[in-house]
């Protein structure tokens, strides 16, 4: 509504977008606009967004959407404003291809969101724990240990053989997902709604490799993002962890006492992306143009650079990524690792992967399989076939 003569522009986000100062700046340049931000918990935010879209009202003028939900939401592009109509097409060239296409409708016409950040993949590791197992700890040397996943798992077996009482990685799902994120085609046949989760050999390869690693005792058997995973991070019971850009923040804030013990190496098997968000404008918004102004302001390269410096959210703008401020950024918590460079390269070089509308549900079904192997010692083949069944049911 409008009150006090000012247009109230609402924006719903989750987690830490770090926009507060930017809102004030925007308001300064738009004296008749008042921005109201609502921050919710990640799942609550997305559930509410879906509820509000389903009900036809209640959504904010600008809604943040995470990578885990974007595929599903872009499947109903009619629920969102086509940002291309408002001039977003100009921005296409500034985004890595995968980022731009991830929020583009299946027919390629409707762009439902502008990217805010990306989650380029790397591998974080505990220098002290690798050293304890007689392995190198320098990032370059460590990266050299695992150019491929096979090499990574082999290193893991060497690590395990040293019996340091520490596992090689935290959770099977993180390793599995990282491999999936690197594929050019995963659960859906590109450009279609055909689910190929059961027939895509690359999926099976990733699944089996992860299963083998688990049975080789490389996994700490944690469930990612559970409380215990956090505890384990503090206690140092695993040596490496799949590390999208935003994971730095997780580690730093959840386990501040481990400062200086971490470093960052490249991810095995080439680059990949996990996470990152978009700002979208629901079709039900009453202030579409104004909302777009805000979205383009917030996602502009210079703002992305600024947010990166303030919060560590890695920019999704090529301009911003190439900015020297980003490129030269180092993270003292991670032993001054050149994080700007590591994540930037990973992001720019990434090939887009097509995701169908039930991608999230399929991913969860596959994760269930990995976890069954990890938690319940289920046989890999059985876990895979059950997961594929579940995935296909979810996608029906």
């Amino acid at each position, binding site marked *: 509504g409008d009150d006090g003569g000012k247009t109230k522009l609402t924006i719903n986000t989750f987690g830490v977008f770090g926009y507060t100062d930017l809102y004030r700046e925007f308001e300064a340049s738009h004296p008749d606009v008042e921005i109201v931000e609502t921050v919710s918990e990640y799942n609550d935010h997305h559930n509410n967004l*879906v509820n509000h879209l389903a009900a036809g009202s209640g959504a904010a003028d600008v809604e943040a959407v995470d990578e885990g939900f974007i595929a599903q939401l872009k499947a*109903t592009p009619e629920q969102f404003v086509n940002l291309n109509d408002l001039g977003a097409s100009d921005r296409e060239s500034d985004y890595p291809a995968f980022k731009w296409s991830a929020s583009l409708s299946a027919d390629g016409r409707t762009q439902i969101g502008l990217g805010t950040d990306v989650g380029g993949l790397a591998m974080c590791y505990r220098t002290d724990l690798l050293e304890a197992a007689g392995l190198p700890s320098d990032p370059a040397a460590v990266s050299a240990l695992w150019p491929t996943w096979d090499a990574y798992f082999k290193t893991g077996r060497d690590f395990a053989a040293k019996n340091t009482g520490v596992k090689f990685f935290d959770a099977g799902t993180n390793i599995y997902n990282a491999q999936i994120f690197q594929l050019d085609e995963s659960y859906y046949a590109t450009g279609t709604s055909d689910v190929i989760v059961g027939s895509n050999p690359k999926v099976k390869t990733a699944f089996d490799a992860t299963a083998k690693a688990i049975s080789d005792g490389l996994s700490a058997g944690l469930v990612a993002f559970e409380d215990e995973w956090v505890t384990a991070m503090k206690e140092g019971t695993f040596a490496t962890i799949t590390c999208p850009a935003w994971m730095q923040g997780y580690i730093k804030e959840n386990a501040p006492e481990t400062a200086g013990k971490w470093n960052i190496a490249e991810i095995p098997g080439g680059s990949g992306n996990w996470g990152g968000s978009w700002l979208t404008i629901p079709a039900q918004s009453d202030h579409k143009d104004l909302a777009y102004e805000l979205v383009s302001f917030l996602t502009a390269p210079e703002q992305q650079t600024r947010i990166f410096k303030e919060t560590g959210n890695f920019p999704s703008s090529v301009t911003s990524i190439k900015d020297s401020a980003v490129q030269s950024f180092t993270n003292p918590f991670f032993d001054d690792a050149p994080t700007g460079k590591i994540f930037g390269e990973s992001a720019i070089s990434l090939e887009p992967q097509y995701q169908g509308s039930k991608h999230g*549900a399929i991913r969860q079904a596959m994760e269930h399989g990995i976890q*069954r192997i990890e*938690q319940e010692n289920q046989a890999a083949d059985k876990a895979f076939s059950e997961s594929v069944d579940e995935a296909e049911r*979810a996608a029906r």
Partner: protein
Amino acid sequence: MTIATPAHPAETAAETAAAARETPRRRRKPHTTFRRIGRATVPYWLIAPFFVIFTAFGLFPMLYTAWISLTDRDMLRPGAAKFIGLGNYTDLFSDEFFWNAVGNTFLLMAMSSVPQLAFALILAHILNTRLRARTLFRMGVLLPNITSIVAVTIVFSQIFGRQFGLISWLLDTVGLDPINWQAGEWTSKIAIASMVIWRWTGYNALIYLGAMQAIPKEHFEAAAMDGASTWRQLWHITLPALRPTIAFTALISVIGQIQLFTEPLLFDNSPGSVSGGNSHQFQTLALLLYEESFRLHNFGYGSAIAWVMFLVTMALAAGAYFVTRGTSRLTGGSR
């Protein structure tokens, strides 16, 4: 879980008779004066708020849901709903996830209701003795009912942690292996059942305690003089006298457990998961409903699940009603 109401279905018939007493059939002319009419409508005014609010905010959504359950509808595409008749229902009956959820729901119902009521009985039996600080104990056992869900979630996730949970830690200190509560088919149910039991035992105990205090003291004394120990008294005196109350609490607990949602949702603390475990080992009907509707956006299918739940609950309640009424007739009155 809904809260227990101390209403006993078997009473309804008797009360109906008692109420009918006020106006036995009359052979005289109908009253037509305005005053009488005014008076006759008063009861309807008194119950109107409930029915107005229920119609607006309960019945409308319910009927809407009933309609939705006959369509194939994606949550986000309200315009693209297809009428498919009973299609969702027939799909449901061939859906192994549905049957898995049915099995889990009833298993959890049994695992939580039976011990919960049994513990409540024992607790009430103990509370029914001459005690110091009686009110304090009684208030203490009711605390779980007023504890915030957030606190419950956090505490229980710390208790039932896979590796670093309190129980696993305790097991570890005595040299036993930790238990991966969430993963196991049974351990997960035990954990969830214990959350339910924790939450409702005290409340039921107080209800039983109330009923126990209505048992004449002389019955216990007579039994004591006849040579019955206290446990025999519990068996021969307390239990029979509490039968209607037990039947009632069992019914309420069963209705609550059919709709069991919060505990399994919270127990699955890997963020965002609503599938009730990796193998759906603790996915209840309500959780399946939630997953189908809000995660997979199969609004029609979810609505069908909701209606099946509703009908099952009604059937169970009706069954319980007739069973208790039947037994009460056999034993000559339920009180």
